[in-house]
């Protein structure tokens, strides 16, 4: 598998690099959620749509785990950003 240089931005929304994700893993993160809490990867506007697979790959290669062992971010509504006004008016989430 391709190894991403430490300088490469993995989470575009929060501008988190591969090096920061590796640092989170050294600090004890063992899954996607653990990385997220330590460095915010996946916490931005797209909620990990772009970076989650990449974070999983880095976890797998750093810890020698399989993809099904590193978890995923909990699925939560809304499925796309929706204005609070639309939500209050009862638009579909």
């Amino acid at each position, binding site marked *: 598998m391709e190894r991403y240089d430490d300088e490469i931005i993995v989470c575009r929304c*929060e501008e988190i690099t591969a090096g920061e994700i590796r640092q989170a893993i050294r*600090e*004890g*993160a*063992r*899954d996607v*959620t*653990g990385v997220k*809490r*330590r460095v*915010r990867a996946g*916490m*931005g*506007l797209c*909620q990990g749509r772009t970076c989650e697979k990449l974070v999983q790959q880095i976890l797998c290669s750093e810890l020698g785990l399989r993809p099904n062992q590193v978890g995923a971010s*909990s699925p*939560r*509504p*809304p499925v796309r*950003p*929706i*204005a*609070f*006004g639309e*939500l*209050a008016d*009862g638009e579909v*989430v």
Partner: protein
Amino acid sequence: MTTYDVTVIGAGAIGSSVAYHLCEKGFKVALIDKGDIAHGSSSHCDAVALICDKQPGLDTRMGAASIAHYAELAQKFEYDFEFDRKGCLYVCETDAEYEAASAYAARQAADGYEMGMVDNKTLCEMEPYLAKDMVGGIWTPGDAAMSPYKVCFAFTYEAEKLGLTKYTYCNISSVTPVSGGFHLSTDQGELMTGKIVNCGGVWAPDIGALSGLSIPIQPRKGMNLISEKCEKISFHKVLEFGYMMSKFDSINFKRNVSPLVEEYNVAFNIEYTHANNVLLGGYRGFRGFDIRSEVEAMKAIAERGLRFYPVLRDINCIRSYAGVRPFIEDHLPIVSEVDTLPGYFIAAGHEGDGICLSPITGKLMAQLVAGEETDFDISGLDFARFAAQKASA
């Protein structure tokens, strides 16, 4: 077999603080959690340390002491947990609420706490995006906010410098009292410990059951909505006075709200975060351990939010989340030794105040474990109160 003076079970806001304060006293400490640091309620919550949502008396005293201790730790710790003394506004929609709020604030001020009332004009100046028709509110300048999971990371990071041993993703299968302490069997090996502190929060009853204890904590669900990054629209922690009603059901107070808001027991509160998101809450309900987001509750939270911050109408919600608070019927946590099982301590049941009360709980628990006098009388937090209640029932 590894031997410790004290083993703390649960690495949330309470357990991580207890572990840190025990290490500070020189004990050899193990901290065990079935998952990651802060994987439970402490990462499924908002985070404020307020005195203005406490019951007068011991509850408020704990809050005030904890906020003061937070301020010291923020100075002392290398790990930044985003401590922000933003102050808190409790806003009143009606004259009746304002009257009740004034009586509450006067009572707290008489006890020596910095809390006062502000009128509509001051409110509008302090919070320019707040709806203009609020009667006034309670202003508590010393109240603070922080990142809840960073609090846990900060305590464990600092405690490790003092010799803490962490066992994360570690399951305990048995706890056996033996001469001089307890023997713990775990999937990461056997441990001997002189003392145990159960800091399991909503899971404290499961941990207690391993030692035959019945701990009356129930999960009480909460939910928040997260906005996209946006211009700052709130400048303090802001809640509606009705929040107090949703927390303490003994307060008999009816708001003029929609059936949906009523049904989900939604009380408006808002806070800005250091990442420029807004967190919008909140909700209290009993749903067991189900922490899935409820769409109807999301609508109710958004609806109530718009009543107070109309500007939210065009701001995007990017996520919802939910967690469970460790609820105890009398709204006071347990911070005590178990009289029937010497050497076994419990610090749990803070219902939505775990982040707020984390520093003071850790400090007081370390004093109890060391056999020292506590900073103030906490006999009201004794585990034995439940046995006494049962006996008198």
